[in-house]
Every structure is written in structure tokens, then in C-alpha cells.
């Protein structure tokens, strides 16, 4: 009886190990994702029948700790921090609060980066590849806790003296009216 119990616990333990999955780092995005983008449209109004809105977000970038870490590196290297500081804002608006002028959905932020916004946000169209824009989106969303906790870990791939800001507590996004967005 004792050995049976031990045997079955061992089998169960091994089965549980199957559920473990290693974080996968995607280094070689598909050629379309590596291309610099110039196709994003801001307006939903266009001639013809096809409605165009914010592009759908590839899930990988919102679920990968590596993508968030890369987004953090690019956020500094592409000088987003020049205006937004490390999320606290400066010349540009803060990104770590719950107040979103142009929306908190990944597609909204992607559009903001590629298209630019009035009053100072430059357009990165023709400059950064699509997958990098999505990485930056993931990092920006982590600044206000919009990513799951396990995706925004407290470790960083690079050395920083301050505590990781991508592990911010969750903030319910509010729109320009100051009211919480309706739940999805």
C-alpha cells in the first residue's frame, strides 16, 4: 500500500512537470513583423466598405517577459524616456497612471507610436519595425500594471539601479472624461 502510494505520487508529480513550460524567446520575428510600418491609420473613416481601426495586437508580445524586457531596453534606447521619463512623464504625459488620452488597448498605444499624436508625440512610422513597436507597447502597458504579473517580472535583463517599474500595481484605465472604461 505504501509503495503504491509512493509510486502514484511519483507518477502524478511527473505528469505535473509536463505542465511546466519554459519561456520562449522569439529572436527571429517573421519578415512582415520586421518591416518598418507605414500603413497604420488613425481615423476609422475611410472611403469604401472596410472599417479600419487599431490593428489587432499579436498575443505573444503581451505574454512574454522577454518582449517586455526588450521593450524596456528600446524605450530607453529609442529615447521614449526623453519625454516620458521612466513612465513618470515630463515633456510628455506620464505612462504609469490610469489616465489614457488615446486609449490603453495595445492597438491604441501601437497607433500612438507609429502615427504620432498632436502636441508633440512624434511618429515612428518608417523608423521602427512592427515587432519592436509591439514590444514597446507591452512595456508601456506594464507600467500601469495592465499586463499579468507573471509577464512583468521583477527581474530585468539589464542592470538598472532603481527597482523595476514594469511591476507597477494594476490601475483601472480611465479615459479623457476621467471615468473608468467599461469592462471588456
Amino acid at each position, binding site marked *: 500500500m505504501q509503495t503504491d502510494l509512493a509510486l502514484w505520487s511519483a507518477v502524478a508529480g511527473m505528469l505535473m512537470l509536463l505542465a511546466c513550460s519554459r519561456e520562449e*524567446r522569439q*529572436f*527571429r*520575428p517573421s*519578415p*512582415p513583423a*520586421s*518591416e*518598418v510600418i507605414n500603413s497604420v491609420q488613425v481615423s476609422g473613416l475611410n472611403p469604401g466598405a472596410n472599417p479600419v481601426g487599431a490593428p489587432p495586437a499579436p498575443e505573444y508580445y503581451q505574454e512574454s517577459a522577454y518582449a517586455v524586457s526588450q521593450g524596456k*531596453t528600446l524605450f530607453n*534606447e*529609442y529615447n521614449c524616456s526623453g519625454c516620458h521619463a521612466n513612465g513618470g512623464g515630463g515633456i510628455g504625459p506620464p505612462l504609469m497612471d490610469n489616465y489614457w488620452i488615446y486609449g490603453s488597448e495595445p492597438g491604441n498605444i501601437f497607433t500612438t507610436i507609429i502615427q504620432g499624436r498632436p502636441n508633440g508625440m512624434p511618429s515612428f512610422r*518608417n*523608423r*521602427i*519595425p512592427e*515587432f*519592436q513597436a509591439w514590444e514597446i507597447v507591452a512595456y508601456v502597458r506594464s507600467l500601469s500594471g495592465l499586463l499579468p504579473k507573471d509577464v512583468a517580472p521583477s527581474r530585468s535583463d*539589464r*542592470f538598472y*539601479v532603481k527597482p523595476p517599474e514594469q511591476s507597477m500595481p494594476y490601475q483601472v484605465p480611465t479615459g479623457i472624461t476621467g471615468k473608468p472604461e467599461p469592462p471588456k
Partner: protein
Amino acid sequence: MTGAAFFITSDQFHCGVSLLVGGGPGRHRMLDPAGPQAGNIEWLYWVIFWILLVVFVLTIAGFARAAARTRTSATEMLPIVKDPEGDRRAHWAVGSAVAVTVLTLFAILVMSVITGKKVEGLTSQNPITIQVIGHQWWWEVIYPNAQADQTVTTANEIHVPVGKPIVLLTNSADVIHSFWAPSINGKRDLLPGYSSAFWIQIDQPGVYHGQCAEFCGLQHAHMGFSIVAESASAFAQWQERQLKPAPDPADPEPRRGRQVFLTHACLMCHTIRGTGAGSRFGPDLTHLASRSMIAAETLPNTRGALAGWIVDPQRIKPGNQMTPNPLEPDDLEALVSYLGTLN
């Protein structure tokens, strides 16, 4: 006596390994010193090598002697013999062996310290200063000058004049790297946020290869650099050329290539002085064509290798910070032509 191995620095261990495995002339060979510091390290290496060789031979001889002695059968009970004279001899033998071991180890320690002092002791009133910054996975090289427009910035290829003490100011942009050119000096760790200085001197002209010697991530193995030691006049000539901004391309194809460079992801990370590209995330490309290798000694600087690297760097060095660039064939041709004009 095995403890003596403890006093051999890891440099010497690696050197021994690379000596056995081989490697081309000038490639990572510590026993082929090109400067006074590497000469000192080589001397220490051979001293320790010969001492340990003697110890090894003596130890094996002792084992062989013990193994060859006549044995008695195990069933026979040996009588206990009192032999004060034999005991005294055994005490002497063991005691003197311990004393010789301790003294030898101490001598090696003293020689190690003296060699270390000699290697560190290189100084000069008027050295050439070169700043080396480690990045994942390449080396940024800056020749600082009080006048900003006299500062040379390059990557992975360090030019130095022969026979002159050079001070290297080291730092890291991300994680710990280690600067190691075996035929010139020992290793020096590059720590993020901490500047340190160390000296090198090269007496024979030539190209010496180096490598990152501290595991720093996925492409640690592809993080090489080379040091080109040349005469003072050739060095001055090189420096003068590096100071110039990139020339305006005359032909239409390179002109178009420049347009491609400035309208794609390239300019987000690279600098080409004389154009609008000024980011310092990636290596400075102002004089790319003057360098013999690309991607931190991974590929030769040929047209084909450059095109392959631009289109799919993640195939060649997975995980590196350069993004793939799926360019139109015409654009790629033009871009590579433009990069070829940057000498």
C-alpha cells in the same frame, strides 16, 4: 603539492588549453607575447609549468615505487615491530616534504605577486587614452579628446601605435564583460556603471585578436575584437581619416542607399557622422568600410556578408540587438553600396 595549481591564474589555464587546441598566429595566444606585460605573464607561466612538471614526475615516481614493492599475503598476520630509528626517518621524510611544499607554494605566490606588480606597473606621463565600452555583444571604442570634434568613435577594431603605453578606460553599457587580448595582457572585467583604467603596450606591429572573457549572454562567444598595432605615422594617418565625416556619395546608387539608410530602422541605432543618423545604441558606422570584420569579429566585411547580416542578423547571432531588415533587393543593393563608400 596539488595545491600549487591553485596559484595558477585562470588566464594561464585558458592559455594552456588554447595552446593545446591551437589557433592561428596572433589569434588568442598568450605564449606569443607582443608586449612587456604579456612577456611577464608568459615568464610566470613557464616557471610554474616547470615546477609543476618536476612535482608531477616526482609524484608519479613515488607511486610507481610504492606499487612495485614486494607485498605480503593478506592472510598472514604481521608482527608489530618497534623501530624508533625507522620512525624518526619517516618523521624527517614527511616533515621535509611538507616544508618543501609550503616553501615552493610560497615562492610561487611571491612570483605571482611580483609579476602582477610588473604587469600593473606600466605608466607614462603622456599616454594615449582609449575608452572601451562593452555592449551585448560588441565593443565600442572611443578616442576621447578635449575637443569634441577631435574624438574618434569606432567599434571592435582598436588601432594603437607600437611601443607606446596606452591607458584603456573601461566601462560596460549593460552586463559584466571582460576584455582579453591574450598576447597583450591579462583579463580586465568591464563593469556596468564603474569606470576603471588599465594599461597595455604592444611592441610588435600586427593584428592581435581578443575576446570577451566573462559570460555575458547568448552571443558571448561572438564578441571578439582586434587590436591593430601600427607605426606612429600610420596610426596618425588612421586617426586623421577616422575624424572625417562620411563623404557625400557621388554615384546615384550609393545616394539611394543613403536614402534607404535614413528611411529604415538603421538610423534608430547607428551613427553616420555627416548624415542625420546619430543614435548610439549600435556601433558607429561612419567608417564602416575601413574595418576588416563586422558584427564583433563574426563575419568578414565583404559585400555579401554585410548584406546577409543586414537582412537577417538573428540567423547569424540569435538574440543580438539588431533587428532583421526585410528590404527590397534593389534597396539592399543600394544600401550595401552606400556602406561600402564609408571608408
